[in-house]
């Protein structure tokens, strides 16, 4: 139990919250990395998945990419990027790795969501004289929204986890508190950092959970 009280003491020491290595700065880095990478990933993945889903093409690619993504170790990709020229651009390797790992769930969920839209609804829309583009945006997209948002949620939680591992390869974020703790052989700091990261991940998951409950019923989907 002493470890927990030591970790608590570490967390409540105001000196550990201030400065460039402080908790506030690392928390902000983690948040900015997650949000920026989530926006970039969505901008890349969603248009591709929506068009592929609308056309009904490239399904094998969109679905298999998710399985391949699981087999590739995040840490290995981070280090590989670090040793390439991308490694010279500060947070470059972190951002590239984060985006790469957020793409598969976004692609797969959006594609599957678009394909699961009832074909008769799509045909009805076409029968009413809607163009392919109108059908995609006004009919298929809203109906696929629950699945798409579920993909965004998975991607966001994964981004938080990946941003943590990035610290092992010199990136910023809350993971840095843990790695610094290991370097100092300070178990209280390691545990305190881990508690912060775990809390951050659970809060992100919780925010999506609440947003889903507050969403209008048609955007919630059936579970």
């Amino acid at each position: 139990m002493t470890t927990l009280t030591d970790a608590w003491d570490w967390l409540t020491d105001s000196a550990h919250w201030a400065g460039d290595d402080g908790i506030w700065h690392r928390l902000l880095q983690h948040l900015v990395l997650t949000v920026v990478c989530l926006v970039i990933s969505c901008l890349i993945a969603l248009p591709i998945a929506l068009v592929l889903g609308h056309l009904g093409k490239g399904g094998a690619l969109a679905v298999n990419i998710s399985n391949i993504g699981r087999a590739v170790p995040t840490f290995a990709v981070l280090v590989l990027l670090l040793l390439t020229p991308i490694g010279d651009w500060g947070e470059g390797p972190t951002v590239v790795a984060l985006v790469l790992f957020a793409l598969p769930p976004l692609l797969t969920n959006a594609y599957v969501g678009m394909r699961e839209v009832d074909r008769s609804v799509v045909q009805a829309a076409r029968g009413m004289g809607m163009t392919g583009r109108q059908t995609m945006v006004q009919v298929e997209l809203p109906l696929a929204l629950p699945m798409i948002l579920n993909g965004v949620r998975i991607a966001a939680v994964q981004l938080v986890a990946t941003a943590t591992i990035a610290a092992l390869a010199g990136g910023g974020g809350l993971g840095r508190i843990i790695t610094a703790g290991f370097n100092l052989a300070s178990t209280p700091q390691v545990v305190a950092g881990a508690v912060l990261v775990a809390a951050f991940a659970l809060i992100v998951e919780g925010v999506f959970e609440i947003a889903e409950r507050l969403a209008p019923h048609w955007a919630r989907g059936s579970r």
Partner: protein
Amino acid sequence: MTAPPDDCLARNEWICGEYLSTRRQILMDAVVQHLQLTAVSVLIGLVIALPLAVLARRWGWAAGPVLAVTTILYTIPSLAMFSLLLPVYGLSASLVVAGLVLYSLTLLVRNILAGLRAVPEETRQAARGMGYGPIRLLLTVELPLALPAAMAGLRIAMVSAVSLVTVGAIVGHGGLGNLIYAGMNTYFKAQVLTASVLCVVIAILADVLLLGVQRLLTPWTRATRG
């Protein structure tokens, strides 16, 4: 005075045959450690997940809490998970195994439970009508029918575990992750690339192996689909 050797190791190239031949033993040891950590973790995960899923199936009220707890565990990033277990296990291989067990639980419990729930009620009734007791029903009817779904979960858990082991490098027990970590600090490109590729190869081989096991265990799925 001999001139320094001018090979791919000296030039620090990404792909280097010299590396493979001179560091064979180091690579083998890392692969063995990687395989051991993965296999032990997933096996322990399976031993814990199976009764949990069976209990959650038997008592409906238990399903909610079991799924909720394992899902929350899955949300915690791997580096944080290993760090949270540090006071309990210290800098040991058990630390990595414990973390990976907690991750595989979500995937295994969820899939085994889904498989058990998908067993048709008529099938269960028929077995009961033939005089099967609850244990025999579970072992000879429900579990075999849940096997395809359970195996799907096992494959995902195995592949994820192979890639998560690398993060164990932070405590010095990361299998190929140790080589990646060391290679990062010394800027040793051949070592980082070789170890990374080996990780992916292990993941793919493990997946294919489990797929083969699944085919052997469930011959009836081929008969009906073929």
